[in-house]
C-alpha cells in the first residue's frame, strides 16, 4: 500500500485535473492582475509599462476612490458594531432551551441562503417611491412625511444599502455564534450559578469570554465581506447617486469593463487583495489573546 501511494503516476492522476483548473482559472489570474496593474492598457492595443502611475492616480487624482474607501469603512463598521451585536443577541435568544427555537433559528437564517441579487432586487422595489412597501407602510403609520426615494437621494442611499446587507446577513453570524454557544459545556453555567452568576452576568462572564475565538472569526469574516461588497451596490444603486454608494470592487468592474482601463482596474483589484490580506492578518494579531481556561 505504501508503495502504491507514492506512485508518481497515480499522484498525478489524482491531482492534475483539479490543480490544472485551479491554477489556470484562479491562481495565474491573480498573478496576472499584479502584472497588469503596472501597465496602461485598453485590452486591445499593446500594453505600455507605466510603473506606479496607476497607483499614483488611485491615491491622488481619483476622488471617487477615497469615497469608495470610506464607504468600505462604513460597511465594515456596520458589520462589526451593528450586525455582530444583533447577531449575538439572536444567537442568545435561539440558544435558550424553549419550544420552537429551531423554527426561529431557521427563519432568521433563511435570508442568508438567498442570492444577493435577489435580495437587492427585492429591496429596490421595497424602497421604490411608487410601488414600494416602505413608503406605503410609513403612510399607514402616519409618518408619510418621511416617505422619499430612499436609494435616489445622496443622504439616504448608503444607509438604505447598509440596512439591506444587515437584514440579509444577520442570520449568518447568528448561526456561527449559535454553534459556538452550543459548544460551551453546561457545567460552566452550573458552576457560575452557584456563585450567583445568572442572566446577563452569565453572558458577560461565561458566554462572551468562552466565545472569543468564534467572535474573532466573525469579526474577520464581517470585515472581509464588507471590503468585498459588490453585488448589493451594483444591483441597487450602481454606485450612485454621485458616487455616494460606490465600492472598490464596483469601481474596478466599471473601470475595466465599461471604460476599458484594464491597467487601472487591475491596480484597484490589487489594492483590494492587499487590503483584505493585511486587515485579516492585523485583526488576527490584535484579537488573539491568551487562551482562556477555567
Amino acid at each position, binding site marked *: 500500500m505504501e508503495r502504491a501511494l507514492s506512485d508518481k503516476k497515480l499522484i498525478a492522476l489524482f491531482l492534475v485535473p483539479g490543480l490544472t*483548473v485551479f491554477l489556470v*482559472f484562479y491562481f495565474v489570474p491573480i498573478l*496576472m492582475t499584479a502584472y497588469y496593474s503596472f501597465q496602461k492598457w485598453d485590452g486591445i492595443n499593446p500594453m505600455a509599462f507605466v510603473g506606479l502611475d496607476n497607483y499614483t492616480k488611485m491615491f491622488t487624482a481619483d476622488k471617487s476612490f477615497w469615497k469608495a474607501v470610506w464607504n468600505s469603512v462604513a460597511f465594515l463598521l456596520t458589520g462589526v458594531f451593528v450586525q455582530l451585536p444583533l447577531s449575538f443577541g439572536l444567537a442568545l435568544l435561539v440558544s435558550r432551551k424553549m419550544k420552537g427555537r429551531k423554527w426561529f433559528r431557521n427563519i432568521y437564517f433563511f*435570508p442568508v441562503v438567498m442570492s444577493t441579487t*435577489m435580495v437587492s432586487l427585492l429591496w429596490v422595489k421595497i424602497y421604490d417611491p411608487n410601488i414600494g412597501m416602505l413608503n406605503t407602510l410609513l403612510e399607514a403609520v402616519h409618518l408619510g412625511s418621511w416617505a422619499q426615494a430612499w436609494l435616489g437621494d445622496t443622504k439616504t442611499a448608503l444607509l438604505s444599502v447598509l440596512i439591506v446587507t444587515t437584514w440579509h446577513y444577520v442570520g449568518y453570524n447568528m448561526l456561527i455564534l449559535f454553534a459556538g454557544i452550543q459548544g460551551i459545556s453546561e457545567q460552566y453555567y452550573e458552576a457560575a450559578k452557584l456563585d450567583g452568576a445568572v442572566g446577563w452576568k452569565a453572558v458577560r462572564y461565561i458566554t462572551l469570554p468562552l466565545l472569543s475565538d468564534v467572535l474573532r472569526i466573525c469579526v474577520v469574516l464581517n470585515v472581509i465581506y464588507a471590503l468585498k461588497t459588490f453585488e448589493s451596490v451594483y444591483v441597487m444603486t450602481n454606485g450612485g447617486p454621485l458616487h455616494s454608494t460606490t465600492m472598490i470592487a464596483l469601481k474596478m468592474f466599471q473601470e475595466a469593463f465599461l471604460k476599458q482601463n484594464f491597467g487601472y482596474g487591475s491596480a484597484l483589484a490589487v489594492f483590494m487583495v492587499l487590503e483584505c490580506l493585511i486587515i485579516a492578518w492585523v485583526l488576527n494579531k490584535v484579537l488573539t489573546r491568551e487562551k482562556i481556561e477555567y
Partner: protein
Amino acid sequence: MLKTTKNTGLYLLMSLIAVLQLFPLYWLVVSAFKNNSEIIGGVVWALPTEWRFSNFSEAWVSAKVNQYFFNSVSVTLITLFCVLLFASMMAYALTRMRFKYNGLILFILLMGVMVPIHATLIPLFMILKNLGILSSRLSIILPYIAVNLPIGVYMLSAFLRSMPKELEEAAFIDGCGVVKSFFKVVLPLLKPPLASVAIFVFLAVWNELLMAATFIQKEALRTLPLGLMNFSGQYSISWGPLAAAMVISTLPILLAYVLFSDQMEKSFTAGAILK
C-alpha cells in the same frame, strides 16, 4: 408564574424579529400574484383579490425565466459534479499519498480561500477570450470550479485526516488498487462532508452574479441572477411578473433548505471557520 410571563415576552420578541425577517419575503410572494393597481393602490399586507398565476406564466415564458432556469441548472450541476470529484481526489492525494510538494499545494490552495474573486476578473476575461470560450457556458463553469475547489479540498481533507485508514488497508489486502479503493471505499465514506461541500457550492454557484455578468454576453446563456437583473431593468413597471420570476428562482433554494437545513447549518459553520 414569573417564568411563564418571561417566556411570553421572549416569544413576542422572537416573533417580532421573525416578522421583520419574513415580511419582505411575504410581500414578494403576494406581489407575485397581484397586478400593478393592487400593488400601487392596495394595502401592503393584503392578500391578492384574485390569485394571478398569469404572472408566473408570463415570467416563465415571455420573460424567458425558463431559459435562465435551465442555464442555471446545467451550470450548477456540471460545476457541482466537477468540484466534488476533483476536490475529493485532490484531498485524498494530499492527505494519503506521499510526495514532496504536499505543503506547497495546500498553501497555494489556501490563497484561493483568502483572495477575493474580484482580483481574478480582468485576467480571466483575457484568458477566456484567448481560449475562444468567452460567452459560452464553459466561460463561467471553469472559473466556478476553480473558485470552489479550495474550500472543498479543505473541508474534505479535514475529514479524511480524522478518518482511520483500516478500511482502505483492508481493501488493498483484498487486491484493490488505489483507484478502485478510492472509488469503492473512500468516496462512500466521504458522503457526509461531500454533502456539506455540495450545499456550499450549490448556493455559491446558483447565486453568483459577478462572473456571469462579466463573461456571459449572449442573452440565451444568462443564468438566473443575471437574467433577473436584466429583466428588472426592462420591465421596471410590472413588478408582479418580476416578483414571480424571483419566487421561481428561490424555489430550489427553499426546497434545499427544507430538505437539508441541518446539513446547511453544518456546511455554513464549517465554511466560515475555514475562511
